[in-house]
């Protein structure tokens, strides 16, 4: 549109804005085209002017537009288009009854990241998978990390958002633990309680006696969560061992001797009668280490676990396992895992408490137990975290109790809630390898659960996730 043209159009529009004829301000060519008929010419001019405004007008961007820096790519290849709808449905489904991090973990296990249009990370989430850190940085600061090797130092500390800082600290903990310790000593106190609690996870990587002095200062942190975490790590490192009062201890556990010819010692939970007593026991154990507990009864940790009378009191068993998970060293954990799996009936919920400390083979063993367990335990598994995703073959899943119960519930049995069915199908979807997911979908389809059913979105997503050839191969179970 030329300037003259624009000026004429503005004059015409201006005349019509307040009402009246605009023919006398129209360009001569337009006035001619409008014709001489007074009843017609205003309308014709309107048609010409309106069309001209619509077709010839080219809006100009304001001077003050701002462009965002280029969106960085996530650290893994983006999910193929054909799996995106299933991913979105699965995330929507997950939101109602489980942490959506499970779905992201399944993607990661197959070597993919979510499409940025389908899911973007919240940079305040300190537990983000590393693949999303560049995107989180873009969201947080409006710019991507331009220098991939930017080092985390005391000076650059504030330039890193929590997830990126956590990731950098975790990586540095393996190569330069002294630097990490020095950084934490300088910066830890200035962070919020939420971030300080997240930072404590760094001490789980490559724990060393060098950490003890700093952890001892954290044992009196203003956050109770940080204090508890510090005490747990100190216990694992042997730097915190407060002996419990034997009088108080006697309220909760008792040492027994049995046998006439061959005397054997055992430790059993004291039977409690009220909820208040159970709560007091929980509080008592929360301030303790396994080592201190065992020592108070004149045991070492491993012999204490050997002497403990398992399956007398499920709640107390859980307290002991939690105590071990939080405060025992790796060898004790290995021994405990072996002991739990060696029981006639292993409680997978109890094993779940050790999930963060178990080796991959033990995790797989735990998953095998889980799919044959009582239906209600699936919920616990999802709450606890699975650690390994998308690995279980079809033969295990197709004859599992989990699938059998789910199929029964889908077919006729209304005793199970819809939430339970959704959780069970999601657990199947998270555990199955790709071929198993396909086989499960087919089995469920025969039961009448159509291929488009929302409940099977995670299985459908799983079946579409062909392992990315650029990612590490799946380990053979």
């Amino acid at each position: 549109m030329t300037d003259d043209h624009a000026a004429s159009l503005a004059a015409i529009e201006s005349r019509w804005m307040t009402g009246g004829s605009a023919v006398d301000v129209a360009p001569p060519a337009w006035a001619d085209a409008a014709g001489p008929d007074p009843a017609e010419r205003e309308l014709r001019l309107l048609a010409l002017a309106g069309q001209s405004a619509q077709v010839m007008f080219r809006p100009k961007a304001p001077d003050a537009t701002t462009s965002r820096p280029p969106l960085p790519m996530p650290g893994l290849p983006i999910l193929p288009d054909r799996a995106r709808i299933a991913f979105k449905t699965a995330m929507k489904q997950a939101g109602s009854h489980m942490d959506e991090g499970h779905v992201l973990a399944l993607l990661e296990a197959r070597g993919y990241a979510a499409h940025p249009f389908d899911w973007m990370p919240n940079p305040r989430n300190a537990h983000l998978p590393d693949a999303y850190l560049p995107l989180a940085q873009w969201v947080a600061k409006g710019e991507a990390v331009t220098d991939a090797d930017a080092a985390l130092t005391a000076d650059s500390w504030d330039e890193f958002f929590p997830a990126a800082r956590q990731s950098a600290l975790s990586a540095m903990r393996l190569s330069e633990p002294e630097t990490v310790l020095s950084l934490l000593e300088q910066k830890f106190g200035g962070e919020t309680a939420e971030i300080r609690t997240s930072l404590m996870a760094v001490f789980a990587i490559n724990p060393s006696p060098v950490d003890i002095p700093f952890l001892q200062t954290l044992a009196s942190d203003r956050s109770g969560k940080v204090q508890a975490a510090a005490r747990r790590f100190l216990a694992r490192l042997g730097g915190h061992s407060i002996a419990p009062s034997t009088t108080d201890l006697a309220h909760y556990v008792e040492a027994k001797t049995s046998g006439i010819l061959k005397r054997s010692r055992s430790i059993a939970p004291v039977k409690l009668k009220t909820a208040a007593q159970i709560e007091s026991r929980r509080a008592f154990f929360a301030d303790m280490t396994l080592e201190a507990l065992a020592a108070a009864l004149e045991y070492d940790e491993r012999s204490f676990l050997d002497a403990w009378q398992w399956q007398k009191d499920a709640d107390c068993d859980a307290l002991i396992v939690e105590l071990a998970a939080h405060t025992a060293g790796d060898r004790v954990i290995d021994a405990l895992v072996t002991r739990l799996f060696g029981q006639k009936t292993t409680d997978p919920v109890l094993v779940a408490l050790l999930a963060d400390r178990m080796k991959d083979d033990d995790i797989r063993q735990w998953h095998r137990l889980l799919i044959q367990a009582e239906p209600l335990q699936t919920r616990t598994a999802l709450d606890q975290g699975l650690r390994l995703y998308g690995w279980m073959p079809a033969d295990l899943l197709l004859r599992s109790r989990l699938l059998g119960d789910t199929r029964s519930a889908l077919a006729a049995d209304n005793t199970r809630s819809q939430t339970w069915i959704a959780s069970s199908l999601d657990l199947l979807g998270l555990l199955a390898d790709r071929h198993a997911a396909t086989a499960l979908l087919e089995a469920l389809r025969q039961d009448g659960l159509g291929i488009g059913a929302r409940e099977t979105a995670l299985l459908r997503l799983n079946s579409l996730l062909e392992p990315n050839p650029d990612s590490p191969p799946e380990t053979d179970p």
Partner: protein
Amino acid sequence: MSFSLADIEKLAPDQASLNAASKLTKPSKWPRLEFDDKAGLYWGECQGSGSNPYRVVIDAGDHGYKCTCPSRKFPCKHAIALMWMVAGDASAFHPAETPGWVSEWLGRRRKTAPTEGPSQAGAPKSIATAGRPEKPEPAAPEAIRQREVAAAKRREKTQAAIAEAMGELDQWVGDQLRTGLNAFVADATERCRRIAARMVDLKAGALGGRIDEVPSRILTLDADEKPTAAMIELGKLVIIAKAWRRDPDDAEMRRIVSTSETRDQLLSDPAAFRVTSTWEVVGEQIRTRPDGLVSHSTWLLDLLSPTPRFALLLDFHPASTGRRESAFADGERFDADIVYYPARSPMRAVIGSRQALSGNGENPWPKPATDHRSDQLRDYAQTQATSPWLASAPVLLEAGSLALGPRNRVWWQTRNNDMALPLANAVPEPALGLDLERSVGIWNGLRLELLSAETRVGRVSFDD
């Protein structure tokens, strides 16, 4: 109560529906068949030609039914087929809990006895003959002649009414200019509603619907743009009135002003413009209109055409029936024979037949007719020159990006910033950091509604 074959015969709208339903009575056509014995409900999903199956539910108690297909026949062939399967052999149905969409339907429906389906010109309906080829009725020359005379009289009467409507419209537009566009903008909803109602009374129903939507297009703009938008909208009405007067029998103008051809009429028209190609669903627009109808526009892009060619699948349904499931997934590609409604710039169309994708489905989008160095809206200007009554038209834009302007308005702009188009719709935040290698949108002269784009993170959609 349950279904008998006689019940189904009574309910079916015509023999053709029975014939069509008979082909859908195989359980293999239904990925999901379930029932709730206590509630007397049967439901299923029928795999039609679309990627999304149609959802069908029937109530064995009072013979109520519901299907998500867009058929104008009630009950449709899917509902009839489901009833037929229940009446014949219900063993294919699995017991299940009533799903949410069935519960929603139960909550919404009014319990009335379904009416017996009309019998076309007394034609008998029989399940026994369903599926057999239909014999044409013997022609009755006198009856045909009488029908033609009656139709001609109706047409004449309708045209006279529309001519009167066009006169009133011209008068009304002139009044708006005399009283000023500022006053029109301030009172657009009421003024448009009145003239739209008048258009409907005078048989110009389609034009009435369009006028009813004018305020929603104007009032969302910035204050300084509203008079321009009003000028454009009113100018279009003048153009439509003049074009209709020039040829009241013109199919395109008749569709814009009064009524549209039926799908069957279009499909049986040998002169209709057809394109057999590979198509991609590039976007959807779902709007609730002031008259209570929801317009559902699905935009397709011809992937085999050397220059951009679009097709618009347009459907309407009452807002009271809730949102319909889309028959297509965004970005879906398929082979189809598309039949266009007659128009100077063919746009609106129906699918004649649809097939699965024959190639690998990796054809890129066609190149815009112009490159980014020249005017990206030249194709649009050409469309407007041919069909100046169009309120908007699809555009395929070359490489560009999005930028934020004042008042958080998002602008699409070319890489060298020589052209910028303000967006009508919001976009997801990551879009602001992406180069859009090609984009598809709907441009109306003032705003661009971005539908989808090709980017380095693949094809992205903006109409979610």
